[in-house]
């Protein structure tokens, strides 16, 4: 490594002068090449969370269902019968903006490794995607098409179902798309595994793919800085995914854990060996000796620093007692997975790197992992909104039928079929509710086999939802972030599930800018409050900052993935109206307004103004009522009122059920205003709707809203089906 004349090497690697001084002080000398490479990655935003760690401590992380909280590769909650669900969402935004297919594919691969690193078998993938306006942007269409293909390529090939997700299109994501992937895994409690290295003298075994030059500097170069026009040159820092290698790695890892052969297990993600090995050492309060000369390489002439920071995919690191090493290597051989002893655990608290026995770097583990300075943000509310409105797509005085048509075929509301048809949702034989059948995906916990649920015994399951809404968080970061949590929980309630925990991915701009710091700080406070309101702890997550382009920051986009449990998947609630003659009821305290709504967007308005005030006890009561009504089969359908407002929600129930409805809206209720996570549309026989506000009945071939509109269902269904696919074709 050589420094240019213009600036010292440490600055090129993303360290500030102040940080470098701290390193020199801590080390008592200047770091060598290998050491500087390792430190620059471990002290990057991506690894050290230096601008967000203090804020994240505000989030509640404990609860009665939590088995593993933040800090491990993935959090885990108890789902009963001795089983645990591990889950986590993570971003792969910048790699995907540079190379969407591989960026998205390796995003899925990385989050899957986090899941099996804790001992869980991945049973589901979900994704949350943001792009610029596909109606007008060729680049956004390209990014969407390739990112979706990449997600499908990895998930489909490895045999993990992609069961849900969400996509929104806004101008602020034009240069900086968001690719967040969430994975869910299932494990017996006893197989849950820690990444903490233990036992001096134990061996460090690297297994999986060969180590190459791909992804070098990804964490510091791509993930911890703003994107610029010159980023095409960073394409070589994006990793290449190999789902076949990961499928073998997955089966091999779970067999090793089932056989009780591992003391600890860790995946290699951002910052490669450097990060995974030093984190294992830090968690175990031990030291490590590691010889890069023993690492199997794809290219023979790699430098020690390159081996230490390579982000080659599909690799795992484990700690093994010496007498079990041969058995570990034999299991790896069975799965045709390369495995090599590359080092050992020591009691020195020092991470020593050798090359064929010669010492090339030595760093105290605490300096690497703990001593990166944490920064206080300087939040400051902007005087006016940072974001502008787009082109007006529907007149503000359009009649209700025209407005409903425009909303149903808008890119943000239209059917996602064109996307989710590229994913396998059924492999592994657990999937009960596929995309568009229910507000959350529903999976049976026991596989669906001959004897499952014999004699009418309940088949317990989980429901999973992922959600985010940048527009509304831009209007009010605190209230908007809370709304995302309410809406995610509302989605679960519609299937009959009770939330157990959530994971979050906080996608924001550059936190060193006061207005972005304000968005981040407010949003975290809102999340924390909503978690307490609904008693749903945060069990893990990820922060993705510096999502900016020369045009400005992205909309502040906290994404929430929530997991809940339902007692019997046979009673899982569905979106679609099912029975002509059923009454339709509104559940919840619904207080809609237009600011930050999809209609405001179609009117060309900027995301500004205020969000509706929330009555938390009313939200809890509405969620409980819907959950119980679904579980008791009082309701034939349940759907939360989300983007687009109450008429869009009712139209979606009609489209999903293939049947019309006659509606009489309560006087004065805005048909297109939004108040997310608070209210629901349910249908069922009258006797099950006791105490609810009846607003209509299921039946006919039209959506007939008294005094507002009467449109054939077939027309609405066609608009909804074609809205997005037309834009992409």
């Amino acid at each position, binding site marked *: 490594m050589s420094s240019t004349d213009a600036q010292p090497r440490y600055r090129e690697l993303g360290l500030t002068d102040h940080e470098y001084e701290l390193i020199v002080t801590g080390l008592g000398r200047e770091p060598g090449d290998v050491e500087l490479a390792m430190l620059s990655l471990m002290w990057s935003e991506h690894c050290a969370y230096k601008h967000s760690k203090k804020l994240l401590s505000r989030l509640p992380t404990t609860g009665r269902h939590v088995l593993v909280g933040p800090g491990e590769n993935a959090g885990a909650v108890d789902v009963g019968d001795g089983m645990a669900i591990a889950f986590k969402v993570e971003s792969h935004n910048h790699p995907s903006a540079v190379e969407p297919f591989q960026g998205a594919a390796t995003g899925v691969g990385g989050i899957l490794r986090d899941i099996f690193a804790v001992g869980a078998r991945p049973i589901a993938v979900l994704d949350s995607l943001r792009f610029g306006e596909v109606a007008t942007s060729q680049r956004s269409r390209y990014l969407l098409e390739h990112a979706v*293909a990449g997600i*499908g*390529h990895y998930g*489909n*090939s*490895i*045999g993990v179902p992609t069961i849900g997700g969400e996509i929104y299109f806004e101008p602020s994501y034009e240069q900086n798309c968001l690719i967040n992937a969430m994975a869910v895994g299932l494990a017996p409690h006893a197989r849950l595994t820690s990444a903490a290295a233990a036992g001096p003298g134990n061996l460090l075994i690297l297994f999986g793919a060969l180590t190459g030059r791909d992804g070098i500097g990804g964490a510091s170069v791509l993930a911890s800085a703003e994107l610029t026009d010159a980023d095409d040159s960073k394409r070589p820092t994006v990793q290449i995914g*190999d*789902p*076949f*290698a990961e*499928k*073998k790695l997955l089966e091999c890892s779970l067999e090793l854990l089932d056989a009780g052969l591992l003391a600890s297990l860790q995946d290699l993600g951002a910052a490669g060996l450097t990060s995974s090995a030093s984190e294992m050492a830090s968690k175990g309060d031990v030291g490590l000796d590691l010889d890069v000369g023993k690492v199997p390489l794809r290219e023979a002439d790699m430098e020690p620093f390159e081996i230490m920071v390579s982000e080659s995919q599909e690799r795992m690191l484990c700690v093994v007692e010496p007498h079990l090493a041969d058995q570990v290597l034999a299991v790896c051989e069975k*799965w*045709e997975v390369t495995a090599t002893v590359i080092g050992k655990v020591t009691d020195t608290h020092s991470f020593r790197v050798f090359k064929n026995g010669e010492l090339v770097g030595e760093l105290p583990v605490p300096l690497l992992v703990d001593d990166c300075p944490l920064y206080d943000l300087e939040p400051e509310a902007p005087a006016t909104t940072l974001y502008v409105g787009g082109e007006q797509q529907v007149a503000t005085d359009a009649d209700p039928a025209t407005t409903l048509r425009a909303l149903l075929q808008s890119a943000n509301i239209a059917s996602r079929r064109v996307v*989710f*048809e*590229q*994913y*396998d*949702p*059924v*492999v*592994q*034989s657990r*999937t*009960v509710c*596929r995309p568009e059948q229910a507000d959350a995906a529903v999976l*049976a916990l026991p*596989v*669906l*086999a*001959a004897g*499952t649920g014999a004699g009418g015994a309940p*088949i317990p399951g989980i429901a999973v939802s992922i959600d985010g809404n940048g527009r509304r968080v831009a209007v009010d970061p605190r209230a908007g972030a809370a709304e995302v949590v309410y809406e995610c929980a509302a989605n679960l309630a519609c299937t009959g599930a009770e939330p157990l925990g959530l994971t979050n991915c906080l996608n924001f701009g550059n936190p060193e800018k006061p207005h972005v710091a304000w968005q981040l700080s407010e949003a975290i406070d809102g999340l924390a409050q909503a978690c307490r309101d609904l008693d749903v702890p945060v069990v893990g997550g990820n922060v993705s900052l510096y999502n900016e382009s020369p045009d400005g920051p992205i909309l502040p986009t906290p994404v929430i993935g929530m997991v809940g449990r339902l007692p019997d*998947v*046979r009673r899982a609630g569905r979106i679609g109206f099912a029975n002509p003659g059923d009454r339709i009821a509104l559940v919840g305290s619904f207080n809609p307004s237009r600011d930050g709504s999809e209609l405001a967007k179609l009117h060309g308005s900027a995301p500004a103004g205020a969000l509706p005030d929330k009555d938390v006890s009313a939200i809890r009561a509405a969620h409980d009522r819907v959950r119980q009504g679904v579980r008791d089969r009082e309701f034939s359908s349940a759907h939360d009122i989300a983007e687009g407002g109450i008429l869009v929600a009712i139209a979606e129930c009609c489209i999903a059920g293939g049947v019309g409805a006659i509606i009489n809206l309560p006087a004065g209720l805005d048909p297109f205003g939004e108040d997310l996570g608070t209210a629901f549309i349910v249908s069922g026989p009258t006797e099950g709707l006791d105490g609810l506000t009846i607003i209509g009945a299921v039946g006919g071939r039209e959506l007939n809203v008294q005094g507002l509109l009467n449109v054939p269902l077939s027309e609405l269904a066609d608009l909804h089906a074609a809205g997005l696919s037309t834009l992409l074709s």
Partner: protein
Amino acid sequence: MKFGVIRFPGTCDDVDAQLAAARVGEAELLWHRDRDLKGVDAVIVPGGFSYGDYLRAGAIARFAPVMESVVEFAREGGLVLGICNGFQILCESGLLPGALLVNNHLKFVFRQVQLDVVDHNTPFTRTCPPTLSIPVKHTTGRYYAPEPVQVVLRYAPGHNPNGSQDDIAGVVNNAGNVFGLMPHPEHAVDALTGSTDGLAIFESIRAAVSERIPVA
């Protein structure tokens, strides 16, 4: 009766096929490196991405040790069912005519499709109703054969998901004991997943086996 389900590295729907077959008989997994078929009465080559399918779908799997035994088993009249990647592998192995090409739209597609059973006179379809609702999920499912073939399943009008020649979804060999199809009957065996139509294919196999002298 006993089904054997082949597991290659990269196979994804092996456990699903095993679970489905176990609804009508016994079912066990057969490892790709083993030549021993363990006395099974019928072999299922399941879906997935054997060996990653980076070259051409099924092109590597045909050389697996277990496939030598499957070819021999088929030549002796044993019943062999190939689903999706299994269909591709059977075509690559020469047990079935034709080939599977990349979908005409070049993308992976998952879709619940309607199938017309056009030949009930096979060991795989004898108890099937006239139409089946079964999901497809593949990138390489467009069937092509230059010569006439024995078609068993066709996509119903408007349901062809991949541009397959003459809407062909499944074919048998001339002897009638090897069947390949792109749709996944193992994913349509439980009402909770939306359809039980796929079960008829496994039940047909059981009925056929129970009337035959077992293959040696």
